[in-house]
């Protein structure tokens, strides 16, 4: 009984340490063994969106850029209001693992009242090396706003993947 409790504690420690001490669960006793296969994992979470906020277009075509750090550059002739952010993705997995970042280089946005815009997309890094607390990458972009761009809500989707090699 006591032995069993001990073993559970050992196993608990093994789980807490993820893969590191998994072999400790195979204690060398003749009675009932418990095994746990710990698989390497990767998680991807989206913690902020790429926000260009609200733009009032001008008489000439211009651009709005949001850097991968979230800083906005409002092109000549445009009025930009609201808070801009870069898209942020958190990645967690084995410490030291190198994860390749991939995704679309541009996206087309369709307006609720007609009209389209395109945005190029920039990634903070082509690969990230995960630390003990994981890692993250950001996506910024440059939005092409036409002269007297039709007002409305513009929506678009873009693909992003975290790739193990």
């Amino acid at each position: 009984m006591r032995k069993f409790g001990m073993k559970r504690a050992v196993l608990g420690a093994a789980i807490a340490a993820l893969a590191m001490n998994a072999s400790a669960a195979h204690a060398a006793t003749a009675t009932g063994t418990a095994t746990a296969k710990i698989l390497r994992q990767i998680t991807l979470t989206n913690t902020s969106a790429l926000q260009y906020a609200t733009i009032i277009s001008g008489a000439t075509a211009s651009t709005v850029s949001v850097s991968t750090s979230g800083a906005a550059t409002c092109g000549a002739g445009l009025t930009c209001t609201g808070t801009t952010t870069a898209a942020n993705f958190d990645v967690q997995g084995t410490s030291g693992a190198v994860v390749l970042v991939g995704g679309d280089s541009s996206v087309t946005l369709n307006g609720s009242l007609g009209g389209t815009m395109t945005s190029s997309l920039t990634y903070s890094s082509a690969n990230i090396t995960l630390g003990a607390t994981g890692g993250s990458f950001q996506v910024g972009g440059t939005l092409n706003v036409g002269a007297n761009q039709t007002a409305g809500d513009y929506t678009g989707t873009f693909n992003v993947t975290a790739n193990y090699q």
Partner: protein
Amino acid sequence: MPDFLKGFGLFCVALCGFAASPVHAAGDLLVAPTRVVLDGSRGTEVVLNNIGAEPATYRISLEIKRMTAAGGLDEIAEADATPAERAALDMIAFSPRRVTLPPNQPQVIRVGVRIPEGTPPGEYRAHMLFRAVPDAAPATASEVAKPASTGVSIALTPIYGITIPVIVRVGNLGAEASIGEAWVADTADGPAFNFGLTRTGNRSVYGDIEVTRPGVSEPLLVARGIAVYPEVGARAVSLRVPPELAEKLKGPVRIRYSEDREVGGGTIDQVDRVVK
């Protein structure tokens, strides 16, 4: 099966602990393991878990990717696939292909392999993509960010996912790799540690890189899971490092490329280099 379930329950304990970090978006996901190698006819299982706060529908598919000389993975349209890439897509079977999961609900994806008679020896590979199917653009977005009469408001939705390689080996294959020159260089996003990897043989090489300074036991840099796939004979590896580490890496170092710890961790190549 009961054995597996028992293991799985414990595994879930680990996952749930790990996934306790703040979650926001629908579509956040966990995939384990991060690499699948199949030789012979035995299949395996991959776990997908919804770690978001909302239920989400995930699609699972196989993609073709080719390694570039710069070490990236290019997406290849199915129409442009080589016969070997096509064969990889045909021999890897998996199910389910679409699944709706409530938060914190794991799902096992079964992966099987059928190697047709007469398949030439070699390594066949596809990349399994897991990603959430986006909901229709949330109505709240337009309510919150109602445009001024002359303004435009923007809602960009990322469709994001994870890919892991699924590798099928047919026949007796071998490969070796060697480490080239190493240097530190500045990139647009900060300094990076660079080196080349050259590969020979008829399969990929995969393993961990450890950079140590002679006489110092603590490694300067560890980078795990670096592959050179058969479609390239050589690739560059460029790892971003903090500026203070970039300075430390300069000078004499030992670079070791070792096999994955799960298959013994044997040395693939080890060299002494003076990093500039």
